[in-house]
C-alpha cells in the first residue's frame, strides 16, 4: 500500500479524509475504527458534538471532526466511520469521511504548519507528504499533503467549558 520508502519511518499515522483534505493522526492515539452509528444527541453542547456513543460500556462523545475544524459538516454515507482515539486519558470518537491507510512516516519529514491567522492554528501539528497508490489506479506523482492533527489541542474539554 505504502510507497513512502525514501527514508526509514519512525512513526505511524492513520490517514483519513474530510471533504477533499487528507488528515493524519498518530497511530498511538487510535483505539479503534468503527462504523458510523447514530449517536445519542446531547443537549447544551456545541453543534460539533454529535452526541454520545457506547464503546464497550464506555460512554464516549462523538465529534463531527470536519465541523470542529471549521469545514463543512460531513454528510453521512456508506464509508463514514468513527475513529476512536484517546486524548489525555479521555476517549472520543471522530466522525470522518473515509479512513484511507496506515502510513509510516519519518518525523524528520514533518513540516511545521504555516502560521495562519485563525483562532487556533495549533490544531494542525504539521504537514507531511505521502505518495500512495490512488484509489482509481492513477499514480499520484506529487503525493498527498497530509495535515497532522494535534489531538491535545483538539481536546474537547476546554471547548465544552466555554459552552457550559
Amino acid at each position, binding site marked *: 500500500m505504502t510507497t513512502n520508502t525514501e527514508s526509514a519511518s519512525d512513526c505511524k499515522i492513520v490517514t483519513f479524509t474530510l471533504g477533499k483534505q487528507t488528515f493524519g493522526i498518530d497511530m498511538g492515539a487510535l483505539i479503534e475504527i468503527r462504523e458510523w452509528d447514530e*449517536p*445519542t*444527541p*446531547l*443537549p*447544551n*453542547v456545541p453543534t460539533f*458534538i454529535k452526541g*454520545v*456513543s*457506547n464503546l*464497550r*460500556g*464506555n*460512554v*464516549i*462523545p462523538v465529534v463531527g471532526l470536519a465541523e470542529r475544524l471549521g469545514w463543512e459538516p460531513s454528510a453521512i454515507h456508506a464509508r463514514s466511520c468513527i475513529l476512536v482515539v484517546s486524548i489525555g486519558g*479521555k*476517549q*472520543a470518537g471522530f466522525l470522518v469521511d473515509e479512513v484511507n491507510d496506515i502510513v509510516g512516516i519519518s518525523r524528520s519529514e514533518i513540516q511545521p504548519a504555516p502560521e495562519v491567522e485563525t483562532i487556533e492554528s495549533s490544531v494542525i501539528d504539521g504537514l507531511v507528504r505521502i505518495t500512495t497508490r490512488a484509489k482509481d489506479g492513477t499514480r499520484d506523482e506529487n503525493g498527498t499533503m497530509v495535515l497532522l492533527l494535534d489531538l491535545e489541542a483538539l481536546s*474537547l*474539554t476546554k471547548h*465544552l*467549558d466555554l459552552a*457550559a
Partner: protein
Amino acid sequence: MSDELDEIQAIFFEECTEGLTTAEQGLSAMQGGDVSAETIAGVFRAVHSIKGGAGAFGHADLTAFAHKFENVLDEVRGGKIAPTPGVIKVMLSSFDVLSDHVETAKGLAPRPNDAASLAALEKVLADRGVPEDGAAPAAAAPVPAPAPAPVVAAPAAPAEDEFGFTPVAFALDDFDAPAAPVASASTWTIRFKPSRAALANAGEPLLIIRELETLGAKVLSVDVSDVPPLRDLDPEDAYLVWVLSMPGDVAQRDIDDCFDFVAPDSLVEVTRNEVEAPAPAFEPIPAPEPEMAAEDLIPFVPVMASIDDLTAQVQQVVADLAATPMTPTPAPAVVESAAPKPATEAAQTIRVDLSKLDLLLNLVGELVIRNSILADRLSPADRQRVELPELARLTRQIQDNVMSLRAQPIKQAFSRVPRMLRDLSVETGKQIELETVGETTEVDKGVIEKIGDPLTHMIRNAADHGLESTEERIAAGKSPAGTIKLSAEQKGARIFVRVQDNGRGINRERVKAKAIEKGIIPADAQLSNEEIDQLICAPGFSTAETISNISGRGVGMDVVRSNVEALGGRVEIHSVPGEGTTFTMILPLTLAILDGMIVRLASQRFVLPLAHVLETVQPEPGQVKRTSPDTEVIDMRGEYVPVKRATEIFGLNDDRLIEDSLVVIVESEHGKVGLVVDTIDDRREVVIKSLDQNLHPIRGLGGATILGDGSIALILDIEALVASTNRYTPKGLAA
C-alpha cells in the same frame, strides 16, 4: 522512578490515615475509660507504624514527634505510666499534633508548632523518671508493630501469623471426625446418572457431586461401561454413572436435598449399606470396583426428584456457588471458634486500587447490559433454553459483590470529627461531648469521600449554633456539657447520617425574620415549622449574629444541601426548641447504580431518577392551565404545580399536546415540578456512566446509562433541570 516513589508514598499516607483513625479511636476509648491493654497496644501500634513509614520517607519532623509520642505510649503500654485522665489528655493533644504533622508531610499544611506538645510529652515521661533516650526507645524501636504480646495477652496469640496453622490442624481433625463412624457403622452408597434431558437443561452433575462432597461424600468410582465407541458417541447424551459413598450419619433428607434439582428421569439410587464399607476415606478414589457397590445395594430407595422449574432452581445453586467458596464447611467454623477475635483484621484485607474496582464495576455493569440485550433479542422459547434468568441472577450477585468490595465503614468519614470537636470546643469555649453510633455501617467509598464536607459543616453548625454556652446550659437546667450525637444507619438502599445536638433548637422567629430580611421569603409568607427549619439551608442564609471564626465564612448549610443533593440525597431537619436539632443526610449507598424510570421525550429515551419521582398523571383536559404565555401549571388536587417541558429545555422538537403526554411530578430542591414526558417505558436500576469521564459535565444531565439494546439513555439531573428554568427559587422553596 519518582512516580513509583510517589505511589509508595501515597500508600504510606493512606496507611497514615488508617493509623490515625485507629489511634484516635483508641484514644477516644481511653478517654471514655477503656484503658485495657488491647486498646493501648492498638494506639501504640498505629503510632509506631506511622513513625516507621515516616522514617523511611524522610519526614524527619513527623518521625521525631511520633518517636516521642511513641515513647510515652510504650511506657503506658508497659504499665510504667498510668493512663490517668491527665496523661490521656496529653496524648489526645499529641495526637492532634501528630495529625498535623502528617498533613505537613503530605504537603497540605505548614509545619505545626509542636513545642508545647513535645514539652508535655517530655513532662509525662520525666514525671515518671523515665530516661528520655535510654531504655524506652531501645525497647520501642525494634518491637515490630504486632508484637505487644505481654500486653495483648494470650488469647490474641493464635491470631498471629505464625500460629495461623493451628486452627487448620483442628479443622482437619474435625473434618475427619465424621468419617470415623463410616468404618464402624453404616454408610450410604449413592449411584447417580444424570439423564440426557438433565444435561440438555444444563444440569451440571459436577455441582451435585460437589454438594454431596460437602456433606462428606467420596466418589468411589465412575462407571464408564455405558460409554460407547467413539464413533457412536453422542456428545449430548449422558453415559457416566457416579458411585459415591456417604458417611452413615448424614440424614437421608440431606442427601435427597442435593438431588432436588435433578431432572426426574435421571438415575438416583441412595442405598443404606449396613455392611462395613471398605474404608473409602483412606483409599485412592479409583480403586474400588463399581460392580461391588452396585451389587451390595439391598434395599433400593430411589429418591424422588421431580421439580419442574429446573431452570430457576439450578440457578440458585450456581448463584450460591458464586457466593461461597467450595470449602468443606467444618474448617472455617473451627477457625472462627479457635481464633478469639483478632485485635485487628488487617491480616485479612488486601489493598486494592479503587480505580481497579471501578473498572471491575464497569465491566460488571457491561455484563448486566449484555444480559438484557440477550433477553431483548431472544424469543421466549430460546430464553428458556439458554437459562437466561440464571445468568441474570448470577450477574446480579456478582454486581452486588463488586459493590460490596467498594463498601467501607463510615467511620472513615467520622474519624475527623473528634479532632474537629476538640478544636471547636477550644474556639467556642463550650464543653462538647461526642457520641457516635453505627460507625461500622458500610457505604460506597465514593459516598464516604463526598460526605466529608457536608459532615464538617453540620458538625460546625451544631457546635456553633446548636449548642448553648456552658452558662446558658446551666441556666436552662441542662448538663454543662453539650452532646453531639453522630450516627449512621442503613435502611434499604439508603444511608441515614445524623448529626444531633441537645442544644437550644432552631429559633424559628429569628430564622423567619432573617429570611424575610434577606428577601428569601416574602414578608407575609405563611410557613410551617418544618419549612422554617428548611430555610437554614437556603443559599446565603446565616443566623450567626457575629462573624465567628467558625461560621460566617460565606459557606453555610446551603453547601450541605447542595453537596448532599449532588450525591442524589437530601437533608432533613428536625428541631425541638430548647431540646436540640437533628440534621439527617439521606444518601444513596452507592453512586454507581441508580433506580430510574425510563421515559421518552421526543422519542428519545431518558432516565429519571426514581428518588425524585412523586407521582405520574395523565392530564385531563383543563387540568393544565397557563399562567403566562410561557408558563403552565397543573392542578394537582387543588395544588398548582409548575409544569416544565424538558423538551424545550433540551431544544428537542416536540409537537405533542400536553393531554397526550404524561406529567411526572418530581420533587426537587425548588419544590414540586411537573415534567412533561411522552411515555414511561420501564422502571429499572441503571448503571451510571459519568459523562465527564470522557467529556464534561453537561448541565441538566446527571450522566448516561446503557440500555438493554446497547443504546444510550441520558440521565436527567432533576435539580439542575428545574433550576435552569425556574427563577423563582424562594417561591419554590416556600411551596
